[in-house]
């Protein structure tokens, strides 16, 4: 009875409000591949650390490879599940962003946080007055945060949990790996 109560309380503590209803297909989620474009090459190590930081939380989620492809900015068939590019998003714009896409039945891809994902796109702001001005630890926190979106996490809605979440919308915890709230969300999702 006590055990049942503890389980019930734990389950209700995280209702899954900070996760997207969309998903990677099960086999894809177990072996996601990341491709870093030449435009983001300066941040290759940050991408590698930020992607792999999500491994080990659930056996159903595994980022398998992070590769650099100098051809990815040009026309290329070498496209992985997740592509990371460097783009000028302005001096005061986003540090970085992410968006997952589904394949539509009438052709092409469309924005979809709520369907079965086919590909994901991550962009890092290359404006010299933006991401580049962050400390190394905050750059890493930002990239790990973006991979949180890739694997299905939203920004946490309850800002009182900001200190426990790398998925906080604004500000930094100066931590580079998923935190307590992020781990709980991944466990709930997968």
């Amino acid at each position: 009875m006590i055990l049942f109560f503890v389980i019930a309380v734990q389950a209700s503590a995280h209702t899954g409000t900070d996760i997207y209803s969309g998903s990677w297909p099960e086999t894809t989620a177990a072996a996601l591949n990341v491709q870093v474009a030449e435009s983001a090459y300066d941040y290759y190590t940050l991408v590698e650390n930020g992607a792999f930081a999500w491994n080990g939380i659930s056996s159903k989620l595994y980022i398998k490879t992070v590769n650099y492809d100098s051809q990815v900015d040009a026309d290329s068939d070498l496209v992985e599940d997740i592509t990371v590019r460097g783009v000028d998003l302005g001096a005061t714009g986003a540090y970085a962003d992410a968006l997952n896409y589904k394949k539509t039945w009438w052709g092409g891809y469309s924005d979809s946080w709520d369907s079965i994902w086919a590909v994901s796109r991550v962009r890092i702001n290359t404006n010299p007055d933006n991401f580049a001005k962050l400390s190394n630890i905050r750059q890493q926190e930002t990239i790990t945060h973006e991979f949180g979106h890739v694997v299905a996490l939203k920004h946490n809605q309850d800002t009182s949990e900001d200190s426990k979440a790398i998925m906080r919308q604004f500000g930094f915890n100066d931590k580079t790996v998923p935190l307590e709230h992020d781990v709980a969300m991944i466990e709930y999702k997968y």
Partner: protein
Amino acid sequence: MKKNITAIITAMLLLATGFFGYQHLNPQVLASDAKVKLYTLEDLEKNSTAIVKAYITEELSTEIDFDERNIPYNYRTYSSLNVKKVYSSKNGVQEGDIIKVVEFYADWRELRGAYRAITGEYYKPLESGKDYILFLFKQEGNDYYEIIGLHQGKYVINKIVLNEDGRPINERLTPENLDVQKVEPYYIEKVSQVLKKYK
């Protein structure tokens, strides 16, 4: 038999026209989840090259790059704005000036429908017929301004009603009235501060 085939083809054509017509009339919004610096009002003021009341006069151009899967990865739209009032300026912007502003979104159309890509889940592009208070930053070497912190530097003033304390009336704080895609709490706080200070 011939009649049946004609009826089926007509029905299919009608369905296709209806579906793709709908896709063209209702643009699909591709909005990324972005991590952005949180700007307080003080930060906005400190970082602004100019703080103005302005309205959009013309969309000048859109730049958009697609990847090998026809997914947009780099997009921006430039517009011209008429400055109605200058609250502060570090570079001599004056009332009546026409200035160029960049926004990190793009509209485009394909055979299968209309699309809009936007950086960030809160930002909604400037629309004609509305007056905005804008916190603008001009980076050295650029001939255009950017709106500081995406939605954080943009405040529509036509639809927000303030109560006696100078705070916006809560029921009016809908995404439509605030001219954002979604409402976030820090923004509401700034709406209150901005509209109280900049009239």
